[in-house]
């Protein structure tokens, strides 16, 4: 047996071992979280929110191939939906689940509103326009003092409760977020494999040829923007409920860029990649906390290293959840 053959034979087994390792770490983390101090639970919660955001943005960037730099706008729409409908600001105190529904719908509508003017744009031009859109939403929020409290934000948001069960402690939000990530992740993965997901891939590959096989690219793209924005908005509403405070500062361009980075570093177009990318970009600053201002430098070096070593991301597109499941439980 030649060296190449030996390597080829060994690869699936080592792949399987790695899959098992990461699966075990994930399960262990989930089981251990209830026993961790609140600080760590909060870190894990914000990781889960970023995973949720990454899953949402990935629909537009990874599946449909449209570089959207204004994703944080939808996150803000969701967060301010909760802030306005469950706080003394307008003296409205709607139930959490209802607000989640409203936020989802508002997200979809804003997604389509952004989608319509940018339908003809691609690549750099699309990136610039969406970037502007994200900033516009933030600036509006910043200046609409009577409604949004302007730069001061909105404080004293209601404690969330779901069907009478109060969701207030970090650990409560951990479970809420975990369930949301699992449900949304599963649905989005199924969407990726559906005929619409295939059409998005075709648009990404060659928009004109996609039209040539009968795909209404306008509708397909708007569907991508709407689904993506809905998820961003849901993440925003949960974020607001967990912080019980919102201000425009949470919705800067930097956030949008961070989410794009998670997708690119983790593996564009792959839900597993987003989990990996978000974990690295979220946990690394925590691990490097003692190095304070050197952190950004480390982060930069890591990015350069990853882009050289794994240009397709940590988990390539081809290694999707179905492969993982097969590796773990299959033949």
């Amino acid at each position, binding site marked *: 047996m030649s060296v190449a053959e030996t390597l080829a034979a060994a690869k699936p087994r080592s792949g399987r071992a790695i899959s098992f390792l990461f699966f075990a770490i994930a399960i262990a983390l989930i089981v251990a979280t209830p026993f961790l101090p609140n600080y760590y639970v909060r870190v894990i919660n914000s990781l889960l929110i970023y995973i949720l955001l990454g899953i949402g943005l990935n629909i537009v960037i990874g599946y449909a191939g449209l570089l959207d730099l204004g994703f944080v706008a939808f996150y803000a729409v969701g967060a301010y939906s909760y802030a306005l409908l469950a706080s003394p600001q307008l003296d409205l105190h709607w139930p959490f689940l209802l607000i989640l529904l409203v936020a989802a719908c508002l997200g979809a509508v804003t997604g389509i509103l952004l989608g319509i003017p940018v339908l003809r744009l691609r690549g750099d031009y699309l990136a610039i326009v969406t970037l502007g859109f994200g900033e516009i939403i933030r600036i509006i929020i910043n200046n609409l003092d009577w409604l949004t409290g302007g730069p001061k934000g909105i404080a004293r948001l209601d404690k969330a409760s779901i069907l009478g069960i109060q969701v207030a402690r970090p650990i409560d939000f951990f479970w809420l977020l975990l369930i949301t990530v699992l449900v949304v992740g599963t649905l989005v993965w*199924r*969407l990726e494999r*559906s*005929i*619409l997901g295939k059409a998005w891939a075709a648009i990404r590959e060659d928009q*004109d040829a996609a*039209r040539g096989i009968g795909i209404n690219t306008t509708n397909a793209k708007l569907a991508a923007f709407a689904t993506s924005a809905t998820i961003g908005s849901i993440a925003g509403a949960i974020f607001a409920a967990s912080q019980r405070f919102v201000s425009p500062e949470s919705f800067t361009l930097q956030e949008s860029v961070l989410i794009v980075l998670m997708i690119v570093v983790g593996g564009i177009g792959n839900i597993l990649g987003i989990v990996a990318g978000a974990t690295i970009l979220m946990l690394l600053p925590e691990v490097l906390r003692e190095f304070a201002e050197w952190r950004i430098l480390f982060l930069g070096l890591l990015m350069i290293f990853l882009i050289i070593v794994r240009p397709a991301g940590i988990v390539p597109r081809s290694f999707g959840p179905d492969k993982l499941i097969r590796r773990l439980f299959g033949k």
Partner: protein
Amino acid sequence: MTLTFDRLRKQYGQVVAIDDVTASFAPGLIHGVIGPNGAGKSTLINMTAGSYSVSAGSIALDGKRLDTLKKYQIANSGVARTYQNIRLFDQMTVLENLEVCFYPADVGGTLKEVTWPPYAAARRERRREKCMETLRLFDLQGYAQAEAGSLPYGRQRMLEIARALVCDPRVLLLDEPAAGLNHHETAELTARLAAQRLPDRITIIVEHDMDLVMSLCDNIIVMHHGKLLFQGTPAEVQASPDVQLAYLGTANDIDDIRAAAQDRRAQLGIRARRRS
């Protein structure tokens, strides 16, 4: 059921690419469009498929106007095409390249596909079956899970035709399907296209390979400077002094046409190799 061009015209500024072409294409036949470079052959295909707009005149299928529709709507009326420079969805698998063609038929069930796994499985299975059937027609079943962009050039040509055929089009437009293929592959292509001659399908081939056109086509349209010069059977076209004059200039030798075709193939062959 026929495809008709009525006083069709395409103009780019002062340049007239297609000049009042009126023609009709009957089903069950393979129609060849030939003519020197720049005669407007590809423009005809591009206008029919909706890639180019129509300057004047009309295109109709069964009396239903096509030229007023958007490109995807034309595709959904049963018009499928291939491109002069292969345009596959390179990073998708061979199977997915075909599966995605069922989008117009299946997109309505997307929500159910996402939320109801048994429905999704059934849909996927049905799509897969149809696609594999088409892939087998082109002997591509072995490549089903390969990335389309990784296929050899000749297989990519076949795959593009398979993609055009998977949804059973009423009109099949082939823009230089033999470009860049070697002799053996061209023979294979001729045989496979001959097998796709269905009684209710209109096939139109733009091609420089005269062997292929003469052996495959039932009806040939000769274009010259954007005008329809001649229409007839292969034998009539070969015998026509008009065609010989237009096509060959002064030389009356079909060998010159062959040489031109060879040149063209070589040209595209180089481009093809660079691409892969």
